[in-house]
């Protein structure tokens, strides 16, 4: 019973909780956060269960209303979606636990609606990952996007404005995606991904199909912050409340990248993409520019969250580059980086949130070496995540880069290889800059060390442990990455 309904349970559970939270929240405001964590926790448990269940079962197709796919809508629960579902739900669960104190601190009078909308956000993301229908994808995309705009709008003074700009860009992107789906529907007459994929080779070279590809990539790329469409991201992540950015940054762009994988590799397939215009290569080059641009801009930032936002742009570039390589290694690298980057970014944004909570700012130029005494474990988490970001072994970040490098070598693509290597160095520059500030006393500082070092002033356990979980998780993912890679290898789409 549960196995059959697993996709529906995982996703719709969030909806049930988003309705429950206001009902209980009116009665007792303190119940909102535990309820939200509970909802995310239930989904996380089910998704992990489903992932294990999937390992010895064929892909599950959940038929809504009992209608066979081309007529009705289905949720496709195969290896790829199960993997991404596990990543996003587990991370959302931990981030929501972390957000308790932040919510009390930053928007005490908006908690109820906040958690309700956060649940809707997760519903949208889960639906986007699971659905097997192009139009249904658009609907869930809009649920997720609307919730994302709202969560971003809670925060600093400039937050509503940056959310508004994101809304304009994001809705335009979603509309273009819808237009692309319209082109495809006109040509093929179906909306189901599994149904449509075998039809498309018949229309190879059709200009409408090519336009549809471009429109869909632009539309989803807007959500994924692919290079020319990245403009919304830095402002949004910077001005959003700490808990919002910790929730959105690791998950939002990853899901969009996942949709790109679905569209580019599963729906169209790489031969069709490159038939007339070398679309995959173009996307790869854009990703490269994004990688370099994001890294260079990150170096120039003084605000930690803004730096992390720019770094997100560059890390998304890795994932998309892995997709565009279109060989098994690139695919493994991209998927592994979805996992790794989600964990790393969650950890880093939570560190930024911890600092904001305690210090009231996250301005790098004001960091001082007393932090390592005040927040030893927060800073430990930051170091682990930063070093993993730079890509040093044996932490998780190294291995995704390793597979991407293998992918570029296999594709004989030296430009991409050089970009990966250079951007790793740039990553090192901006992360070691922070580490240096935190771990070393300022040489200009004349105050003796003893007077300067603060007491241990670590954040409370509800914030510290989630951060630590991610830091330890990065080490474990790094050591046991081959188990994950073995799973990913089962998901490699045919045609490679």
């Amino acid at each position, binding site marked *: 019973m549960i196995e059959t*309904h697993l996709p529906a349970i995982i996703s719709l559970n969030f*909806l049930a909780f988003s*309705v429950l939270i206001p009902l209980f929240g009116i009665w007792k405001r303190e119940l909102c956060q535990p309820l939200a964590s509970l909802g995310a926790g239930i989904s996380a448990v089910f998704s992990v269960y489903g992932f294990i269940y999937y390992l010895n079962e064929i892909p599950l197709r959940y038929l*809504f*209303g*009992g209608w066979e796919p081309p007529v009705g809508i289905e949720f496709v629960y195969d290896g790829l979606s199960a993997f991404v579902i596990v990543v996003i739900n587990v991370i959302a669960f931990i981030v929501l636990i972390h957000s308790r104190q932040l919510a009390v601190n930053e928007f005490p009078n908006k908690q109820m609606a906040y958690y309700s909308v956060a649940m809707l956000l997760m519903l949208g993301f889960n639906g986007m990952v699971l659905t097997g229908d192009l139009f249904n994808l658009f609907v869930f995309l809009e649920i997720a996007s609307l919730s994302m705009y709202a969560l971003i709008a809670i925060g600093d003074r400039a937050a509503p404005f940056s959310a508004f700009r994101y809304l304009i860009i994001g809705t335009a992107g979603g509309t273009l995606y819808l237009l692309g789906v319209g082109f495809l529907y006109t040509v093929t007459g179906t909306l189901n991904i599994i149904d449509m994929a075998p039809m498309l080779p018949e229309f190879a070279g059709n200009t409408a199909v090519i336009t549809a590809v471009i429109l869909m990539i632009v539309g989803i790329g807007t959500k994924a912050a692919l290079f020319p469409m990245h403009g919304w991201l830095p402002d949004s992540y910077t001005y959003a409340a700490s808990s919002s950015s910790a929730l959105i940054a690791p998950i939002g762009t990853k899901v969009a990248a996942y949709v790109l994988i679905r569209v580019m590799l599963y729906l169209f397939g790489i031969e069709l993409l490159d038939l007339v215009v070398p679309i995959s290569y173009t996307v790869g080059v854009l990703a490269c520019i994004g990688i370099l641009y994001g890294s260079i801009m990150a170096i120039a930032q003084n605000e930690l969250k803004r730096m992390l936002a720019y770094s997100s742009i560059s890390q998304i570039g890795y994932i998309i580059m892995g997709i565009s390589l279109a060989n098994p290694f690139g695919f493994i690298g991209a998927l592994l980086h979805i996992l790794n980057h989600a964990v790393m970014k969650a950890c880093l944004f939570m560190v930024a949130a911890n600092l904001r909570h305690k210090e009231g700012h996250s301005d790098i130029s004001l960091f001082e070496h007393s932090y390592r005494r005040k927040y030893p474990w927060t800073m430990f988490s930051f170091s682990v995540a930063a070093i993993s970001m730079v890509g040093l072994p044996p932490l998780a970040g190294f291995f995704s880069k390793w597979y991407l490098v293998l992918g570029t070598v296999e594709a004989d693509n030296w430009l991409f290889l050089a970009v990966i290597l250079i951007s790793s160095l740039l990553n090192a520059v901006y992360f070691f800059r922070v580490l240096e500030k935190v771990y070393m006393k300022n040489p200009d500082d004349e105050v003796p060390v003893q007077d300067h070092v603060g007491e241990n002033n670590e954040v409370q356990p509800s914030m510290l442990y989630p951060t630590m979980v991610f830091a330890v998780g990065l080490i474990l993912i790094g050591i046991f990455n081959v188990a994950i890679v073995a799973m990913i290898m089962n998901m490699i789409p045919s045609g490679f």
Partner: protein
Amino acid sequence: MREQFESPIVLLGARLLSPYIMLFGIYVIFHGHYSPGGGFQGGALLASSIILIRISGGRIISRLQIREFFTTPLAAIGVIVYFLAGFVAVLYGGYFLDYEALPFPGDLSPAELRYYGILVIEIGIGIAVMAILVMIYDHMARGEDYV
């Protein structure tokens, strides 16, 4: 929103018009099976009739109709109706939203079950859309403010 507008003529016109719009909205919801219309359109019409009173009468009068406080639970009820229509089907062994599995009383054929299933969700949509459009209007009209 202003507390009250001083224009009896406008208010009178709105009060005369509003019930008919509301009636039409309910008609649209229930007649959606046979003619253009359905939950959304009907819900939007219901919302229009309520908003019409709110615009012409101001806050004090509109309170007599539907209080601002009730729109949120109403919206939740709309969503829950839809959700339950799907969930009950799951409990009775079907897929989510599989109306054939719904336990309507009486001996109904699958097609009739689906007919009533659609009616139920249209009603749910109608309630939710009405409540939410009114809700959006209320929030917008009050601007950024404490409850």
